[in-house]
């Protein structure tokens, strides 16, 4: 047998396709699927939210709360709790197990987590001078629960979380990963939802105190202190305070709510002996 050297032309082992072209096609396909899903999920949110049972919401809430608890050092205050539960008692019957968490962070915000947990930041409490004003903020958050805005606000990620929790169960890593992606600060409510929650809060305030004095305290204090610049981010998700004040005042006139003197905050929040590290 004789060996004849022979050159092999071309390369059968490497495809001739251009990598750039392949890249563009694949990225385009992926983006297309992503955009379609994004739009479809957005449409699904409004369909699904009214159908989520409170039990299921509690399940989601416990997932989300475990994440939240790790991210913030939270604390509870007995006095605030009492005030909160007084308000809850005026609510129509629901399966929610409401609870209040006070975060030490100096952020002017409060929000509603699925499952009935209201989170208030110390920064917001500092801005309010009266018990009535504080109750109004709590009642506002409770209003979001009643209207189920907190589920809508979570938007598309909620749908994914609902699907994952249904299929894989709550303690599955995938469900937890999806809940991780639900960033609380990115929860947005529409201005209509905010106004509806304001009006709900007003009615709750009337039930609690027999009058609605102090309802606008929080907004007025923000305006007076010229703090608007500083808390711009807060108002980016909420209607501007002046609009809210006038909407609240209009409602007070229409429903003929009584206005009375407010209970100053100092007398309610003397230092809590059980949690001495927190000053409210």
């Amino acid at each position, binding site marked *: 047998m004789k*060996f004849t050297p022979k050159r092999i032309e071309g390369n059968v*082992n490497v*495809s001739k396709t251009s*990598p750039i072209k392949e*890249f563009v096609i*694949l990225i385009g396909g*992926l983006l297309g699927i992503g955009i379609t899903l994004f739009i479809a999920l957005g449409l699904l949110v409004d369909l699904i939210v009214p159908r989520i049972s409170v039990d299921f919401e509690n399940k989601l809430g416990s997932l989300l709360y475990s994440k939240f608890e790790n991210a913030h050092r939270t604390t509870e205050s007995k006095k605030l709790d009492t005030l909160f539960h007084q308000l809850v008692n005026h609510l129509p019957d629901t399966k929610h197990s409401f609870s209040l968490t006070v975060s030490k962070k100096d952020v002017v915000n409060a929000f509603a987590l699925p499952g009935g947990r209201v989170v208030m930041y110390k920064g917001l409490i500092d801005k309010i001078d009266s018990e009535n004003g504080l109750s109004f903020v709590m009642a506002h958050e409770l209003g979001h629960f009643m209207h189920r805005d907190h589920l809508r606000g979570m938007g598309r990620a909620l749908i994914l979380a609902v699907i994952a929790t249904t299929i894989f169960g709550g303690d599955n890593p995938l469900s937890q990963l999806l809940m991780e992606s639900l960033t609380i600060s990115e929860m947005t409510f529409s201005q209509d939802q905010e106004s509806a929650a304001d009006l709900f809060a007003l009615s709750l305030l009337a039930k609690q105190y027999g009058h609605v004095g102090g309802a606008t305290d929080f907004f007025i204090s923000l305006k007076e202190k010229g703090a608007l610049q500083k808390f711009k981010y807060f108002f980016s998700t909420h209607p501007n305070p002046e609009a809210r004040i006038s909407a609240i005042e209009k409602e007070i006139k229409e429903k003929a709510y009584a206005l009375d003197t407010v209970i100053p905050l100092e007398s309610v929040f003397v230092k809590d002996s059980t949690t001495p590290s927190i000053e409210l």
Partner: protein
Amino acid sequence: MTNIIILILLIALGYYAGHHAEKKHYQSIKKREEEFLNLPAVTFSEKMTPIENVASSTLVYGSAVISIDYFKRILAALRNIFGGEVGAYESLLDRARREAVLRMKSMATNANCIVNVRIETASIGKSANRKNSLGSVEAIAYGTALSFKEA
């Protein structure tokens, strides 16, 4: 936003650096393949060769490790979603195999032919490849170099 810019820069850098390296490598491979054209490397066993003709036999081997670039990594990851031929890896493996054979041939000094040639592939850094690091591929070629008695 910054993350996206960094990602795009990495992909672009990966593409240009990887493309350049691949072009250079193929040029060098082709040149050396030409030089070794007269040293056959075959897969049949040395038993096919009459033993009385063989003056010496030695184990020869060559191995090459080629790393994947960022562009190829992303491209392959996209392929993982949709399926199909992973073209991005083909040239990588082709280069590794041919380089390994060339190195094996360089080791076989004074040999007349290499028999019983085998080529194997292994991936390196598999555990490190989980998140944001790059993996490499190793190809190893080995065989028996024979030199024949002068006729």
